[in-house]
Each structure stands twice: as structure tokens, then as C-alpha cells.
């Protein structure tokens, strides 16, 4: 099968280190049509749309200018394969948030190519991008962004509102997702009745309830103490083990070390990319502050 092939194109990147993310194989995707099943357990998670390439995320020479002169990204090449757990790490102002926006299709690059789930973002209208987000992407934010006064179940079900699923099965899937993050006993609780770690787990459940092929977590532990942060990381680890592709955006070195693959960003460029995202993450040994 094509797995070794995709693996190989990945390897030079990870081995290449600083700035070495070459433009060697810009159109590897054009080659063999690979049904997205690189990990043993990627399964049919993405449904019929998971077709289209070996990468969930593919960025080619992406730049982003704000207001015509502020250069947030200066030529980024990045690929993330199915089932990887990647940390995108860098200090604030490094461009990692912009990178998140690119990967999350919340914004478009100034130049370069962004492909998510095999789709070239530049070719998609705003409506199509919305549909892409609804089916292929799940977001977890630093502030959990849960609706106050709404039960955990409905908060999670609300995340599926734009997938075209009827309310009843939205609720069923939401219950299943909450079960997955270990909150099956808290379905009827409101955010103010949950601890910070539980709230973030609700947010994770909301992001994965629709079984998106890619989960984007932006500083998922940033607002949590270490115990609660550990809870959330454990959930991410389990999702990863079950085959979900996860990108964690963080400035926290410990969390970055915990991830099997780390992409370091500084001044709008990738300065390092090491590790194999398909490996299981390290043991969670967080003791210090976040």
C-alpha cells in the first residue's frame, strides 16, 4: 500500500530540523490516490469525505500578511498525516495562532497553498469552507466557550448544529461523546456546576462529537491547573489512541514534550519539526504550574 510512501515524505520533514521543510514534494498528493487510512485505527472516521490524500493538513509555502506589512507567517511548509498527534509550539507572537487559523480554515493565506482533508482552501467559497469545518474540523479553545446556563449535553449537541443532523441524534451523539471523555455522568450539569477540567472536557467532547478527522486544540490547558490539565491531556491521548488526528497549539514546553511530534514556530517560520506523530504520547508527568 502507499503507507510507506506517505511515511517517507513525512520523514525528511521531521528529520530536517530547522527551516529544512523542503519544497521537495509539493504535489505528492497528486500521485497515488490514497484512501486516508494511514494509521491502523483511523477507521472510517471522516466518512466519505476522508478521501483525497494522505495528509489531513498540508501547507505549502504559506505566508500571511496582516494590514499589508505585518508578516505573521513567512513561508511555512507543514504536513500532518492521519492519526498524528502534533504539538505546534512557540512563544506568543511566533505566528502559531495564525497557523491555527490557517489549519482551521478560519482565515486564508496571503500566498501559498493550504489543503485540509485534501481540499485546497483557496478554491473553496466561504460557504464551502463552513461545510468543511462542520465535517472535518473540531476546535478546542483556551477559554472553553461553553454557553452558560445550558447543560453539558446541549452544549455538546450545539456543536453538531451545522452538520445537518437532527436534534435527537445530535443529542445521542453528544451523550456518546461525553461518555468518551469520561463525563457520562454529568450530562445534565451546567458549566457553572463543573470544574475547569470538566468544562474543558465538555469542550473536547463538543469538538469530537461529529467525529471530525482533525481536532485543533488551542492552549487546551492554558486556563487549567495541572491536575485539570492532566485530565484533559489524558482525554486527548485516548482520542489519539482511537485514531483522531490532533494538533495542539501551545506555548507550554511540557505539553509540547508530551506530544510525540513537535513543530516549533518562531517569527512566522517553522524552526524545528521532530518526532513521529503516530507514536503514543509520553507519560503525563505534569507537576509544575502550567
Amino acid at each position, binding site marked *: 500500500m502507499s503507507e510507506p510512501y506517505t511515511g517517507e515524505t513525512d520523514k525528511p520533514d521531521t528529520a530536517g530540523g530547522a527551516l529544512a521543510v523542503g519544497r521537495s514534494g509539493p504535489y505528492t498528493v497528486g500521485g497515488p490516490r490514497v484512501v486516508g487510512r494511514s494509521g491502523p485505527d483511523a477507521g472510517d472516521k471522516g466518512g466519505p469525505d476522508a478521501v483525497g490524500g494522505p495528509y489531513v493538513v498540508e501547507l505549502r509555502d504559506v505566508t500571511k500578511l496582516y494590514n499589508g506589512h505585518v508578516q505573521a507567517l513567512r513561508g511555512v511548509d507543514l504536513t500532518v498525516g492521519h492519526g498524528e498527534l502534533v504539538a505546534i509550539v512557540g512563544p506568543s507572537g511566533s505566528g502559531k495562532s495564525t497557523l491555527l487559523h490557517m489549519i482551521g480554515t*478560519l482565515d486564508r493565506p496571503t500566498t501559498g497553498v493550504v489543503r485540509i482533508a485534501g481540499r485546497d482552501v483557496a478554491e473553496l467559497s466561504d*460557504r464551502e469552507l463552513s461545510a468543511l469545518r*462542520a465535517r472535518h474540523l473540531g476546535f478546542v479553545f483556551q477559554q472553553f466557550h461553553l454557553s452558560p446556563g445550558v447543560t453539558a449535553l446541549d452544549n455538546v449537541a450545539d456543536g453538531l448544529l*451545522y452538520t445537518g443532523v437532527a436534534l435527537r441524534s445530535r443529542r445521542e451523539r453528544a451523550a456518546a461523546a461525553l461518555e468518551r471523555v469520561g463525563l457520562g455522568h454529568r450530562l445534565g450539569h451546567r458549566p457553572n456546576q463543573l470544574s475547569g477540567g470538566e468544562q474543558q472536557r465538555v469542550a473536547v467532547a463538543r469538538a469530537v462529537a461529529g467525529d471530525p478527522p482533525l481536532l485543533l486544540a488551542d492552549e487546551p490547558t492554558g486556563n487549567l491547573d495541572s491536575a485539570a490539565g492532566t485530565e484533559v491531556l489524558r482525554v486527548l491521548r485516548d482520542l489519539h489512541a482511537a485514531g483522531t488526528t490532533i494538533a495542539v497549539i501551545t506555548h507550554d514546553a511540557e505539553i509540547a514534550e508530551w506530544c510525540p511530534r513537535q513543530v516549533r514556530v518562531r517569527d512566522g517560520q517553522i524552526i524545528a519539526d521532530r518526532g513521529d506523530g503516530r507514536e503514543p504520547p509520553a507519560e503525563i508527568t505534569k507537576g509544575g504550574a502550567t
Partner: protein
Amino acid sequence: MTRTAGRLTPARLSPSDVLRVGAVGLRTRPTRVILSALGIAIGIATMIAVIGISSSSQEQLLRQLDRLGTNLLTVSAGRTLFGEEAKLPTGAVSMVKRVGPVITASATGVIEATVRRTDRIPKEVTGGIAVQAATTELLTTLEGGVTKGAWLNAATERQPAVVLGSKAAERLGVTRTGVRVWMGKRWFTVIGLLGPMPLAPEIERSALVGFPAAEEHLGFDGHPTTIYERSAEEAVEAVRGVLPRTVNPENPEEVDISRPSDALVARAAAAGAFTNLLLGLGAVALLVGGVGVANTMVISVLERRKEIGLRRSFGATRGQVRVQFLAESLLLSALGGVVGAVLGALATAGYALSRDWPPIVPPWAIGGAVAATLVIGTVAGIYPAMRAARLSPTVALATT
């Protein structure tokens, strides 16, 4: 790369989902919702109450007209060419009765006499009560009734017996039959008290005796001064045309004919037309309410940039964000509209019942109120909804 996955089309929101998502903002900020819906409610309530109260008053008058009929004509003697009070010929009533469509006709004649409780009261103190001779058919023609005692009949019209109109009895302080009053130069016995006569208020202020008794005891000349006549409803105008000649063939130009129900018709028309100013006030209140809703929606969009960004990250399209805020605006004004319609209907009912009117809120007023709230909700929501939809997801999420 080959596009094997087909086109990406965003899922449609079902109507119930649109409602659900539109209600999110309302549920989380109940105080603000109540206050801004109140503006709409006041406007709608004002308009419904204005329309309702005037409709009720109009309905009351129309029902009264229905009850009283519009087929009554009053013929009075009028004045001669020289300005003197004219008199109708003594045979006028029987002439009128001979006109084909006429159902009933009767007459009264003014007598130069006064009515007093006793002979000790000076002659000049009449209390504004007229003394009149009346034919026995008068009560039938006017479709009136007695509240106490009996009306004049073939026997009592020859006796010194008197029937008092409602106002006359009140002014004389007579509350029962059998008492005596001083008329002309002798005592008359009160044998009956009349009820209200909306079509002939002059009868309410009269003391009525029979024609023969008036001629015998009060020096009456037997000439009627007013003839009351009812005919078939559709023939009223035709009868009106022939009456002057019938009643007074020699001097038809002296005769005055009036239709007492015309006054009621005019009042009913006035009750319906009176409302324009108040309606305008209600419209202004509604407009102000609409501005309030727009204001609330703008603030809501500003405050909920994060939510908007979050929904965009869930996969909401611009259109779906727009629909959400339009739905919210519509729900907000519809809430005000429903509350206002209920308040307006209650105000109408309360006012109408306190006046013994039938409470009427016309369906077109309710329909108009619904349409007005929908228009206001849409207009007030368009701008905020466009703003919400234009927000870039990253900007929306970045705000803290």
C-alpha cells in the same frame, strides 16, 4: 488532485433549529429581552386598545341602532312663512296611516300647561317638563315601554290620568304610580312611568295625557305638533318624500321631517373616525419600540462576537449567522407583539365592560399588529444580522 469527495455543501438548518438558535440570546439575557420587548408591547397595546375601544363603542351604537331601528320618521309642524309656529291638521295621523308602507303612526300635541307636584309650587317652575297630549299608539310606534304602571288606553285617555317620561318623573321626584300631580288647574293621577326613549328624548321630558282628556281638562285644541311614523325599512326614503303633502296638503313646505336614527348613525361614524390621532401615537410608540429592538440587537452582536466566531468554527455559514440574529430579532419583537396584543385586548375588554359596551377587537387589528411586529423585527434585525455575518471568525474568536 482529483475531487473525489464531491462538492461541499453546508447543511441546512431546520426551522425548529433556527428558532432554537434564535432563542439562545433571548434565554441568556431575560431582563434585557423583557425591557426591549416592552417597547414593542406598549406600541402594539396602544394601537390595539385604541382600535378596540373605538370599535367597541361603535359596535355599541350600531347594536343600539339595530335594536331601535332606523325606520322611524318624525314629522313636526315646523313654522309658517311668517315665522309663527305652524299646526298640523287634526286628521294628519290617519292620513299618514293611509300611506302604503307605513306600519304605525302616532302623534303628540304640545299643550299650554305645566305639571307640578302641588298647586303650591309657582307656575313658572316647570322643571323643563313639557305637557303633551299623546295618542294611544305612541308607545308602539316608539317601541318603548313602561317601567311602572301602564300606558294610556282607550279608557284612561279620557280620564285625568298622566304617564310621565323617565326624565320628567325623575325631575318631579315621582317614583311610583298613584301619586297626584297638579296640571293646568286640577289634579291628575300618575298611572305609568316610561322607560328611556333614545330615539325620542323629548318624550322622556314630557308628561303625557290622552287627546280627549287634554281637550277636556287642559284646553287643548286637538292639533298634533309631532307625528311619529314607522314604515318598512326599505321604503323610508319613499315615505319621506310623500309625507309633507300627506300631513299638510295645504302647506307642505312648513313640515319638518327628521330621522332620529341619523344622529346615532353620525355618532357611530364619529366613534370610528375619532381614533386617527391616538393611532398615530401608537404608531410612534411602536417605532420607538422598534428602535429599541434594533439597539438591543446591535449590542447583542457586539457582546457575542465570541459566540459568533465559535459558531463559525462549528461550521456555521455567514447566512446561518445572519438567520440566527434575524430570528432573534423577530422573536424579540414577536414576543413584544403578543404581549402587546394581549394587553391591548385586556384594556379594551376592561374599558368596554366598565361602560357596558360589547368588547370588540377586530381581527384585522390583530392581523395588522402581527404584520407590524414582523416588519419591525425584520427591519430592526437586518443591520445587526449583517454585521454579525460579516465578522471574520478569527476576529470574533480573538476578542476577549
